């Protein structure tokens, strides 16, 4: 009791600092057994996009004709992710600017990325940047590819890379390798042009 104040200060300091990978990774991995043990549900986030389409705009497309209400646990889960983001942003926000690897930072600076304060560069991702070619490609075209690609691949980083690999599924390994190849190609050959538009 005597040290409670001191302890909670230390605790808050630790919580507001960025969490290391060896804390975050296992916590994310534990989502897999948590969902399985709770109700035999397999981890996968991109499915939520399909359920939202099925709920809001099925438009007679066979791919969206199913009982999405049976999958409402998945929508509840992503709503939770959003709320978690709000809570972390409000109460556990890192007061310091983000620490970006110096090589990445130097390289991005040559491509007109100058804001290294928050989690994302706000001079690149903002409402006013949406109308520029660069902003449109990064936010709108990028978002479209995320939605289109994950559904075509049948899953994303959670469904394939984490859930699929955890269950030793080789199609998920192929998908994960392709996610990475796509990311490397875009980063090394696409972004140098797009960021300097």
């Amino acid at each position, binding site marked *: 009791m005597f040290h409670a104040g001191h302890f909670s200060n230390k605790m808050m300091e630790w919580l507001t600092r*960025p969490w290391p990978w060896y804390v975050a990774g296992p*916590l994310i991995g534990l989502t897999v057994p948590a969902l399985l043990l709770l109700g035999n549900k397999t981890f996968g986030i991109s499915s939520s996009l399909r359920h939202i389409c099925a709920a809001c705009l099925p438009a007679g497309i066979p791919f969206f004709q199913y009982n999405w209400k049976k999958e409402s646990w998945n929508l509840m889960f*992503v709503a939770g992710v959003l709320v978690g983001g709000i809570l*972390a*942003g409000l109460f556990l926000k890192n007061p310091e600017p983000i620490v970006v690897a110096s090589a990445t930072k130097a390289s991005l600076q040559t491509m007109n990325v100058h804001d290294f304060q928050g989690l994302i560069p706000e001079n690149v991702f903002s409402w006013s940047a949406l109308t520029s070619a660069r902003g449109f490609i990064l936010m*709108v075209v990028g978002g479209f590819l*995320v939605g289109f690609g994950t559904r075509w691949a049948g899953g994303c980083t959670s469904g394939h890379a984490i859930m699929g690999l955890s269950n030793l599924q080789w199609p998920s390994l192929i998908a994960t390798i*392709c996610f990475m190849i796509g990311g490397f190609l875009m980063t090394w050959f696409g972004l140098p042009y797009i960021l300097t538009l």
Partner: protein
Amino acid sequence: METKTEEFTPEVKTQRPNEVSLRSLWAYGVIGILFGIVFVKAEIVSWFRIQEMFRLDSFHMYGVIGSAVMTGMISVFLIKRYHAKALTGEKIVIPAKVFQPGQIYGGLLFGFGWALTGACPGPLFAQIGAGYSVVIVTLFAALAGTWTYGALRRYLP
């Protein structure tokens, strides 16, 4: 006596499953909240962290994904080894992933989008929550992408 029991049993049968499913829905929300907090606090939602990963300038994301997969693998192994049941009493069955060409083509396209937006679907929700309101546009674009896939599905390999 007979009519009394008949009236009583259906009532129990219809109420109980609803109660359980609603309560477990909240549980999924709570797991989502914890997940979202980890996403933001470990900066997995950061465009910079994804750039570092694809530029091979930092171990952070490889550590996160690698240790998540290791934890998931051990968990799934234990669940199968001990034939664990879900809290609902259901037997735990994980559907197998069937190979299809979309895992290559779609996988590459998602990779492009991942490097552009710095976000996979989960982080999109967490970024919006963390106060980056413009990511709502990216989420709507992702919904449009998913919808377009649904519409074009029969023409794709």
